[in-house]
């Protein structure tokens, strides 16, 4: 019984740390709990914590709380956990196998790191073009964006809050663009905007409003606060450099 509880808990925790939506976490936990033979499953997922209560048929109640300290968006893990939980609830896969698979997913570090860095660079360039930059602006933003992503993931190895990471990334972006603009004729605002788009909280903000609109008030408020904090951090990082540089 005990291992079934930790299995369900692990699935929920993994989904949350990979950045799944709250309803997906709650649905998955509920589905897996029912499939594992619990008569009643109560689950409350928020972006910063998971609360779970499983009622066994013998009348025992297992309650677990998990604190979620970091979120590292990983959609392919979400997709794999989703497939696992479906297979589990249909009885196509044994409890041991699910546990093993989940533990493997928990361990698995990200692969194709260089591709990610180059792609995010190109993404930053694309944003500069979308906000009306020239091709030269786009190119500069690509280079700067790639460096920013490398810098942020390097800082991310240390226990530094996400907001501070965004601040540092923005500072790096703005200083690079500032120095580049001394050599190349650039539309500095657009290039900086493209480069910091990789840090900007667009998705978080939209998810916050989505949560609010669908009645997930706690999650909505918490994500809204996160989006606000990140936006302030990014803007401050840029503003510090620009005011020192006198732009």
């Amino acid at each position, binding site marked *: 019984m005990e291992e079934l509880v930790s299995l369900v808990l692990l699935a929920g925790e993994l989904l949350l740390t990979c950045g799944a939506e709250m309803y997906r976490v709650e649905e998955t936990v509920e589905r897996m709990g029912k499939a594992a033979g619990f008569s009643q499953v109560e689950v409350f997922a928020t972006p910063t914590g998971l609360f779970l209560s499983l009622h066994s048929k013998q009348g025992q109640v297992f309650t677990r709380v998990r604190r979620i300290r970091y979120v590292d968006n990983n*959609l392919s893990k979400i997709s794999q956990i989703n497939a696992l939980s479906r297979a589990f609830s249909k009885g196509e896969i044994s409890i041991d196998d699910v546990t093993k698979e989940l533990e493997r997913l928990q361990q698995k570090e990200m692969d194709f790191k260089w591709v990610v860095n180059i792609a995010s660079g190109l993404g930053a360039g694309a944003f500069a073009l979308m906000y009306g930059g020239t091709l030269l602006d786009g190119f500069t933003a690509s280079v700067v964006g790639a460096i920013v992503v490398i810098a942020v993931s390097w800082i991310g190895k240390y226990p530094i809050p996400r907001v501070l990471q965004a601040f540092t990334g923005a500072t790096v972006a703005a200083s690079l663009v500032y120095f580049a603009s001394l050599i190349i004729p650039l539309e500095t605002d657009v290039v900086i905007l493209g480069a910091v788009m990789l840090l900007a909280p667009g998705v978080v903000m939209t998810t916050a409003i989505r949560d609010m609109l669908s009645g997930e008030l706690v999650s909505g408020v918490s994500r809204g606060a996160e989006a606000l904090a990140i936006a302030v951090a990014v803007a401050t990082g840029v503003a510090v450099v620009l005011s020192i540089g006198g732009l």
Partner: protein
Amino acid sequence: MMIQAAAGFMSAAAFACLYRVPRHQIIRCGLVGGLGWLVLLLTGDYLGEIGAMFLASAVVAVCSEILARRVRQPVIVFLVPGVIPLVPGGRAYLTMLSFLRNDYVKGLELLVSTIFLAGAVAAGIILVSSIFRAISRTKHRKEAVVWRMR
């Protein structure tokens, strides 16, 4: 326009990589994102900023739901990268930058438009996903009943 479409594609594909989308789906994510960006650009003059944003995010959501069902992936695999060109992250940053530069009037203007644009994106997504959920619920109702009895 070609450059804009390519840029929309690229930004969505880049975020697909950044969010570690399963490798085979990256191109599809880019296509969804590029399509959304084109819809936004083409309808902006007729529907106004917020209307166009709503339409574009609804288009992205419909494509994501259909693709997700076709290739058996969770919807967010396509939805999150797909709305990347639309979400007003840059505007949120510009809002704060205006405040920091003591330009409060412009900051407030940007703040309000950021909130409404994010709201339009969210509303488009929610509307579409509710419709799709309602449809698939009626389709699977039989299964659901069996499920509850077990």
